[in-house]
């Protein structure tokens, strides 16, 4: 698997719904179109929520994976 280079990291460890998607939404708005956000979460509800969020907002979820026991997401701002 090739490495994705992120422009910003958002650590939502320890936070539960709805904070991961709310904070992701806030962070993405501060970024340029085309930039990539790496979001880290410990919330087991985050993987399906992030998929739904990316479908709803039109931002691209490049990768959803697990790393060191946490959930890691790479999102590209599409618009």
């Amino acid at each position: 698997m090739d490495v994705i280079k992120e422009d910003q990291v958002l650590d939502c460890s320890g936070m539960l719904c709805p904070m991961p998607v709310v904070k992701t939404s806030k962070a993405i708005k501060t970024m340029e179109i085309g930039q990539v956000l790496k979001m880290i979460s410990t919330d087991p509800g985050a993987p399906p929520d992030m998929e739904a969020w990316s479908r709803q907002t039109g931002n691209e979820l490049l990768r959803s994976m697990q790393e060191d026991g946490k959930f890691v997401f790479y999102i590209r701002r599409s618009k």
Partner: protein
Amino acid sequence: MSKSDPNAPKRLALIASKGTLDWAYPPFILASAAGAMGWEVGVFFTFYGLTLLKPQLTAAVTPIGNPAMPMKMPFGPEGFQNINWPIPQLIMTNVPGFNALATSLMKQTFENKGVASVEELRQMCIEMDVRMIGCQMTMDVFGFKREDFIKECEIGGAATFLEYASEADVQLFI
């Protein structure tokens, strides 16, 4: 997308009719999650839900008559925390301050698990321009005045909310 404009963002219309701490979470969590997805959100606070628009939130919770509520302690070793204590209703109704204790324990539980407080969730909704409408009728009935509520809310009636909800994709009663 709303019925009349296919290009408009999705819309969520909620009615918040309860004012206890356990019922304060669902409207603010749903509203902020929808807001995070770029939806338009409107919440109509009516009956006891109107108390969720006060500047100082004093929502409490009671286990009395609430047999579905898990009674677990948010402190101590893991085995202790997993115990669901069977407390008789008779004890709960007769011990003074029991509701205050239950409220305090619930807040601690939520904080331990990393759930935002109701105040924080409400603030996020305000930042995301969630429309919060206080029910005029409830205000009259319970003797509340406009000044008793946060400045970010508007006052309206059933017709106001129904018009908003008629164009919503998701309409929920909490």
